[in-house]
């Protein structure tokens, strides 16, 4: 490909999050905050609450640079809303050398580095921020998309400024939510710690680092290998979700306290993931625990649990409560 030295820079940002964490909105806020042509899009996976999702923003003062509707394969900035994703997904894939990996985490840098090294990333900078703690304090919920954008502003102020970001937030959210986010975002620059790479590595805003056919899913069955088109026999493909560790998706999971359970069964019926475990004892089905491998932490079971009074204190306790992972 011919290199054009006079090129106007284009900024490519990727967000990794879980369904419900606002990765798509983060990309959209980029597009709004940037002063010039910009597009953004989600990856086109089936989005379920808690499942891994990614989204992209592509920005440049030169419209022709961002006219493409491709997804982003070689971002300069990769922003991770949930550090558990680092284990499941290669969040550094295709990254431009000298770019930034920005992670919401309470873990130390060394631990994060160790995880990402498994994927042999290019030479990149890392920025860490414990956005979850800020979010829980200011927003009351673990929604960290605006905060991770604050960290992006810190490492890449040339894309858009904090003021531009705040204006975008004011446009996008209803006033009450917007105000909370704007208050929280101001704490971000101080809370973001940068771990730079070798400063001889110069970041490029023009070159394309996409590996050829990297979007094709090589390694999965090809046309000549499908048994009968459209029919996936279970001896060829594992069906069902038994092996998918959806329990790793949430920040919390439900735990069971048998002493407060009246065996009403409300939790069994409300759980969207069939995580309430039962056993056939004394001639009837009895609730005995929670399947933590699949519990995504939706809290529905907690809401419907009527609970039971403690015999000693007389206080009412629920038989299901949430436990934070971190």
């Amino acid at each position, binding site marked *: *490909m*011919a290199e*054009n030295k006079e090129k106007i820079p284009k900024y490519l940002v990727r967000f990794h999050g879980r369904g419900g964490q606002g990765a798509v*909105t983060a*990309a*959209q806020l980029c*597009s*709004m905050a940037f002063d010039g*042509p*910009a*597009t*953004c*899009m*989600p990856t*086109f996976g*089936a989005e379920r609450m808690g499942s891994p999702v990614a989204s992209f923003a592509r920005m440049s003062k030169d419209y*022709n*640079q*961002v*006219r*493409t*509707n*491709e*997804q982003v*394969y070689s971002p300069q900035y990769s922003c991770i809303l949930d550090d558990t994703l680092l284990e499941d997904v290669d969040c550094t894939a295709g990254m431009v050398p000298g770019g930034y990996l920005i992670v919401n985490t309470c873990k130390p840098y060394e631990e994060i580095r160790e995880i990402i090294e498994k994927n042999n990333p290019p030479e990149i900078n890392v920025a860490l921020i414990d956005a979850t703690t800020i979010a829980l304090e200011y927003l009351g919920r673990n929604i960290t998309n605006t905060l991770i954008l604050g960290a992006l502003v810190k490492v890449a102020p040339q894309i858009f400024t904090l003021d531009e970001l705040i204006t975008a937030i004011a446009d*996008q*959210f*209803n006033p009450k*939510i917007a105000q909370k986010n704007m208050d929280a975002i101001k704490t971000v620059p101080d809370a973001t710690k940068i771990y730079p790479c070798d400063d001889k590595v110069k970041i490029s805003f023009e070159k*394309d680092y*996409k590996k*050829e*056919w990297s*979007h*094709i*899913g*090589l*390694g*999965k*069955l*090809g*046309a*000549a*290998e499908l048994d009968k*088109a*459209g*029919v996936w026999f279970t001896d060829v493909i594992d069906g069902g979700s038994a092996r998918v560790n959806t329990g790793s998706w949430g920040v919390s999971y439900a735990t069971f306290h048998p002493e407060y359970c009246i065996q009403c069964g409300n939790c069994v019926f409300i759980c969207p993931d069939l995580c309430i475990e039962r056993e056939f004892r004394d001639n009837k089905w009895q609730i005995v625990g929670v399947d933590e491998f699949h519990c995504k932490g939706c809290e529905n079971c907690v809401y419907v649990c009527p609970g039971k009074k403690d015999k000693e204190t007389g206080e009412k306790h629920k038989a299901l409560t949430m436990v934070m992972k971190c």
Partner: protein
Amino acid sequence: MSVQPMNPFFKEIKKPVELTMTGNYAVAGAVSQTDPDVICAFPITPQTQSVEGLSDVVNHGKLKAAFVNVESELAACAFSTAACAAGARTFIATASQGLLLMAECLPMAPGWRVPLTMMISARAFNSPNLSIWNSWEFTLLSGMGWNTIVSENVQETYDAAIIASKISEDSLFPTQFVHDGFIISHSAQKFFAIPDEDVLKYTPRKPRHHINTDKTGTWGGIVTPDYFGEGRLALELEKNKVLPIMDNAFKEFKKMTGRSYHSIETYNLDCSSKTVFLTMGSMCGNILTWMEHNKDVGLIKLRTWRPFPTEQLRKIIEENNIEKIIILEKDDDLSGILPPVGQSVASALFGINVVLRSLIVGLGGRDVTKDEIEYAAKKMKPITDNRGKLYDYLGVRETKDKMWEVRF
């Protein structure tokens, strides 16, 4: 909902304003500005937000329209056709199997000259597998007699919603406007919205024939073999007027907004290789960005899919001495001949001395990247005739570790 996507359209838009919205919400905004009387559609991914957005605007009170819930796409099409035949400005939207489920009803609106307007968020249909992602299902039902225009990005699909409404009412044929599902429907992009007053001036309500009790008649009643063919020829003669009507709609749109559209748009046709890509929709953007670094091929972008701009295309190919055409299309049809876009182009250009190949890409949401574009351009270089198979699939795995190699 903390995010209020339709907020910009809750109040009067008084001057041109830049917004960032997804394709579907932008369409909802545009449609609300055309002041429809009836909105009737059945939700289906990836079309859903277009109708949800409109329900927000109706619920908010800005738009006074009947928002009609029905039990299926077939019902939606039947209800919309009837409402529009009764005189209502009517909007409908669908995708994929929803469009197929409408098939029994689709021929009526063109037959009765009912100016319905429909958005399609193009999506694969269920064969062999269910896919909620982008393919061009709409090319499968191109023979129904609907006008069809295709958009590249959010700006274009916002504009198309307004232009389509005008084309429908000026031509008295129903008009579909299509964008690529997810790629545009769910992509947030910056675009300029038009002031409400301008949109209303651009899409005035005109008197037209409609079902009423003062001038009674039979709509679509049975005719013997003595009349059916005459009815079809009457449609054909009226259909021949649609391309000029579209040209006029584009021209007036440019006057209003400065944005220039044509049934066919061309880029870099005086390139050295005399080779052009020909495609529609979002892929045009991908090719144009790639062409920033690849100046030796051109692009023919079809905006108008139906009626097919045959004469214009012939003229473009001949006047620019184009030697090779690489069609990229997101559909196939297992027919043993060219896939749908290829069939249309081959019919339009039959007898013209040009080399043509069609490549099937991006089915079921597979992204189309510079890899496909580069491969296609390279593969086309040694081709000099129209012998052998004129199409193949591109960008798919033959086996786990091997790309399918294009054979022509």
